[in-house]
């Protein structure tokens, strides 16, 4: 029961490995970036999961009589920053892929290496 009670963390580990596998195994540069994006999203899940307090709500002051339980807002704020970083990384990576396509005429890693060897 305990094992599955923390299933968020299992999903985190699974996504992390799927992303890493795509980065390492796929020769297509766009697929590599997709893998990288999945890899980073897994970390977002880790942070969001740890912030959850059972029965907790959003951390906004509510003027009610009974005391409220709040989820920890700090990891949400942190991960908002990390999402921005992730978006910029993927955008920059795609821009580089476009430039590689212009210069090399291909986005397959092995063909790029072959072209570099012939130079």
């Amino acid at each position, binding site marked *: 029961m305990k094992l599955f009670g923390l299933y968020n963390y299992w999903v985190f580990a699974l996504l992390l490995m799927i992303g890493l596998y795509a980065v390492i195994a796929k020769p297509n540069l766009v697929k590599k970036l997709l893998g990288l994006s999945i890899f980073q999203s897994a970390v977002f899940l880790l942070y969001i999961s740890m912030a959850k307090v059972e029965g907790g709500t959003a951390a906004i002051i509510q003027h009610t009589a009974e005391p409220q339980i709040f989820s920890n807002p700090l990891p949400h704020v942190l991960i908002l920053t990390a999402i921005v970083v992730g978006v*910029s990384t993927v955008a920059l990576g795609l821009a580089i892929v476009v430039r590689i396509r212009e210069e090399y005429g291909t986005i397959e890693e092995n063909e790029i290496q072959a072209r570099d060897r012939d130079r």
Partner: protein
Amino acid sequence: MWPEQLPALAVAVPLACAPVAALLRTGLPAWTVATVASVASFAFAVLLAGSVGGLDELSYAVGSWPVPYGIELRITSFSALLLLIITGASSAALLAGRHSLETEVAAPRHPFFYAAWLLVLGGLIGIVVSGDAFNIFVFMEVSSLATYILVAGGSNPRALPAVFKYLVMGTIGATFYLIGVGLIYMMTGTLNLADMGTRIHDVADLKPILAAVGFVTIGLILKAGLFPLHVWLPNTYAWSPHIVTAFIAACSAKVSLYVLLRFDFMVFQGSLVDHQLQFSGFLMPLAVLAILVASGVAMAEGNLKRLLAYSSVAQIGYVVLGASLMTASGLTAGIIHMFNHALAKGAMFLAVAGIAIRITSLRLEDLAGIGRLMPWSTAAFMLAALSLIGIPGTAGFVSKWYLISAALDAGTVGVALVVVIVASSLMTVAYIWRIAETMYFRAPLDNAAGVRDAPPWMLGVLWVVALANVWFGLLPGIPLVLSADAAATLLGHLP
């Protein structure tokens, strides 16, 4: 009043000047903004280095939020030394490099290029002054993303696959670091490095912390380019614009090593059982392999910049080797080598940039006889190369001397380490000799006839950096005191 704001100013000035540079239309004003901002941060670094002495630490609460809750900037002797390296490398490269950049970067891109440069500078300074684990991650990404732009901004298409690899591996490294920080936050509820160190004592279940040690260490040595995670480094250094290489080769890998040492000593060393043994047991073999393998590859490499890049991988090994001895003398040796290697490699890559203005190919056989055509550039290159080898009277000798004496204190293992250091110094002599032999003792190629020396202004900056190698070899006072204080500060976190 304002000297108290120095830690914040050091970060804010380059970051605030970056959009100004981007808004300018042409290269010259943007270059002026970048250079003034860079020299100003160098001045801040000198002032900060003067105001932290011994084990004193300067704490600055951003926005006056009380420290464990708000973001803290924390200046130690270690940060001050790294600040000097970063701002000094950036200033020298910018002052020397306008002419070189004009030949390599298309004119309309110049303002953006200098804006990205200032973002790298501001990001690296931010990493070094920050005392907050998540803040360090953000600055790390600011400087990394801007570095990718600088590396890919040149005209050499081969930089593109290199920078793609750098982007993928750099992002994996930073994400690993982020996972580690998340796991520690989960168990301690704090992001302040010093606060983490004290709160880990109260953690009941250490398993997530141990996982965090792994993630943080692997992530940071990936970003530092320690063997065997160095594969992004040689091509990135080799194909980026020459002046960019001079800047990032002098400081960016060292900043990651700085975070590794600071994080490990402040957070983990004092609170985990047997961590010191595991730290040195894990890093020492990697450092030895880095030194031997990379020096060996450098001996066979045919491209001058790739050769120097492999040499940098070996030098990162020296820094880690010193640190993995876990003694005051070992850490001092590793830390002062960061400074001395920045001087030597910075001067060598500046000289390469000067040579590359006149000669397009940097393959060794195309550089035959340029010692006669470009006497001043090559002489400065050779002076810095002597420092890299560790000839007495140069800065490199100081760090080799401290490294060998620290190794001798370490007993039987130490003797083996001394053999490694001496063997790799001999390999350094071998690959430097290959360059010297090509440059001085071969007849110049026909198409190189009439090649002049680099522009005088560039030569001036180059020689200042090259002569600094001799200056700090004969009078190593300032960096030595800062390194010894840095080592004492790090060891002060041990129980």
